């Protein structure tokens, strides 16, 4: 059965883990044992029951009342399956947030309406990052409504502020659903709350059902990434993962960035010889000529895929990077020179009046690569339009290709 992956987003303490705990319990997806464990730990720590402990399993997470690292849990609702991805809401744990959220196609932004909480830096920064990660569907859950007397006015204020930010970063807010909830009291989660009659929309789970979609990579042109090599009975073969379209034995293929042509002599899927392979399958191919190490090279039948060493990009810095960095595209690493064009404050979504990005800033940059790579614009094909940034061997951020320059 197809599983839709949904990431939580939002500032620390606004209730992301609690919402997942609540969804697990109200859909009958948590075992008695895990609920009992969360209950007894809450009691030991002298607290009221924390549904968040169902996912926050580390001692430091439970005792400290925070999510340190990402975790996942699956639920089934009305015949559809979802995987809920929890992420930390602390700015210093953003690499863990990215590691979790990057798998999702849908995001639920959790923002607390409680006094002194409201819209905080990670509320907006997480939206910015979700847009960059290519997340397509957004739902905004305004949480802790029970602590503000279910005030419609408080809800509307948060809603308007978030909607304006979404429009500012290019996510059409009219297509985003907003829902007032209490994760702790399970209000507007599965069924409509009796305390918020002014809310005309659907409860959260109903909204998530409408985001349940499949992607259609099958009918697109062939794209496959070469992973490495292995030995077959007919000699050395390249291993590759098909990203879109189909590949056939006997067919002629074009390999980028070298722009070489070759014929697929033999094709193997799951260890057996096959006539063709489709998107998502891992293959091994014997080709008409040995081209040496091709890790990270791309087999493509569309001229949308280009060999390039100059790209216009959006970068997000977990750590600020100077003029040079190492970029990793699907296992292929290359040195890069970065020229900053515009530094962007990810909390306001607006340009900053500086040329020096700080940690957690984004920037529009022109990047020159030391060697050519096979790329596409992120908007045309995501897997080939994104990369991870390393600096001095350490993870420094992520980037997406906005335009291939040449």
């Amino acid at each position: 059965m197809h599983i839709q992956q949904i990431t939580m987003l939002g500032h620390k303490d606004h209730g992301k883990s609690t919402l997942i705990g609540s969804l697990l319990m109200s859909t009958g997806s948590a075992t008695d044992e895990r609920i009992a464990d969360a209950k007894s730990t809450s009691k030991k720590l002298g607290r009221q029951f924390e549904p968040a402990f169902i996912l926050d399993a580390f001692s430091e997470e439970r005792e400290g009342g925070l999510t340190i690292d990402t975790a996942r849990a699956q639920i089934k609702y009305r015949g559809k399956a979802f995987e809920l991805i929890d992420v930390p809401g602390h700015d210093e744990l953003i690499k863990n947030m990215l590691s979790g959220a990057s798998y999702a196609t849908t995001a639920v932004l959790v923002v607390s309406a409680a006094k002194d909480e409201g819209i905080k830096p990670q509320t907006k920064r997480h939206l910015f990052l979700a847009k960059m990660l290519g997340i397509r569907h957004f739902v905004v859950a305004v949480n802790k409504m029970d602590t503000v007397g279910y005030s419609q006015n408080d809800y509307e204020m948060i809603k308007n502020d978030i909607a304006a930010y979404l429009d500012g970063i290019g996510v059409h807010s009219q297509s985003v659903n907003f829902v007032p909830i209490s994760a702790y009291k399970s209000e507007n989660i599965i069924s409509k709350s009796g305390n918020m009659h002014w809310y005309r929309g659907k409860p959260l789970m109903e909204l998530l059902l409408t985001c349940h979609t499949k992607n259609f990579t099958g009918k697109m042109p062939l794209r496959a990434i070469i992973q490495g090599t292995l030995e077959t009975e007919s000699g050395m073969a390249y291993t590759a993962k098909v990203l879109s379209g189909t590949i056939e034995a006997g067919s002629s293929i074009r390999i980028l960035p070298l722009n070489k042509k070759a014929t697929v002599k033999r094709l193997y899927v799951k260890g057996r010889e096959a006539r063709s392979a489709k998107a998502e399958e891992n293959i091994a191919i014997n080709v008409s000529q040995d081209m040496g190490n091709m890790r990270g090279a791309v087999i493509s039948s569309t001229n949308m895929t280009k060999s390039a060493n100059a790209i216009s990009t959006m970068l997000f810095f977990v750590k600020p990077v100077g003029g040079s960095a190492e970029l990793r595209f699907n296992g292929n690493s290359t040195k890069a020179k970065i020229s900053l064009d515009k530094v962007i404050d990810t909390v306001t979504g607006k340009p900053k009046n500086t040329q020096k990005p700080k940690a957690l800033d984004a920037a529009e940059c022109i990047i020159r690569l030391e060697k050519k790579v096979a790329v596409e614009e992120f908007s045309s094909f995501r897997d080939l339009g994104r990369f991870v940034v390393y600096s001095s061997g350490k993870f420094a951020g992520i980037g997406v290709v906005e335009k291939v320059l040449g």
Partner: protein
Amino acid sequence: MELIYMIEQNLDELEEKSIYIMREAKERFGNMAALWSMGKDSTVMLALARKAFMGKVPFPVIHIDNGIDFPETYEFREKLAKKWKLDLIVQNSDIKPEISGYACCGANKTVALKKIMRERGFDALIVSIRRDEHGIRGKERYISPRTKDFKWKYKNQPAELWNDYSSKQGNGGHIRVHPLLDWNEIDIWNYIKREKIPINSLYFARDGTRYRSLGCTHCTVPIKSNADSIDKIISELRSTKVEERSGRQQDKETAYIMEKLRALGYM
């Protein structure tokens, strides 16, 4: 309300994810081995490796043998090692009768694993853990570094996104590879059925009990069950409300035991 805590995922999707991770690890690490407990998960992992690598398992498989596994387990080991032409390494661990549970798994098994990893200079180790087994295992990465002392620095795990699994071991440490992280218990059984994978007979019910999760004879307790076939196990799991590792003593002694065990290098 109907309780469904075990979702049956698409086996083709899971299979492809696992093959990708194993090929990635094989590409990156020069001297990789895998742990094989003769349990269902690590046996499925070997079946997946055969698909990923043209019908043969291209790395040594290690059994950390404390000498107190079930006779059926040893028998299954010999049979499958021969059938699948496995490069089997049996590493004995000293079993001390006075210690059990946490101390036993933490000390004996981990010590023996450290010994063989050092002797053979393995830089990566495939471990067939699944996210749904335990809250702590749910926090793992696909490719995860361990220090020289086998410690898991879980408070500062590397970023892992967009097909970038570039964690390095460094300083005498090694990498844990987790190709089965996405699988659920019921997926393992659906896959065993679909692929007709040979399986340890202890999983099937005899006289009203069966083992749902296998460890050594000292710390593993069977569950009440009449499921004496794969189909019956699958239908039993479809309606169970009990955790898989409820028969494993070492998980329960004190709070955060799995966290402690894993931080020390346990599987």
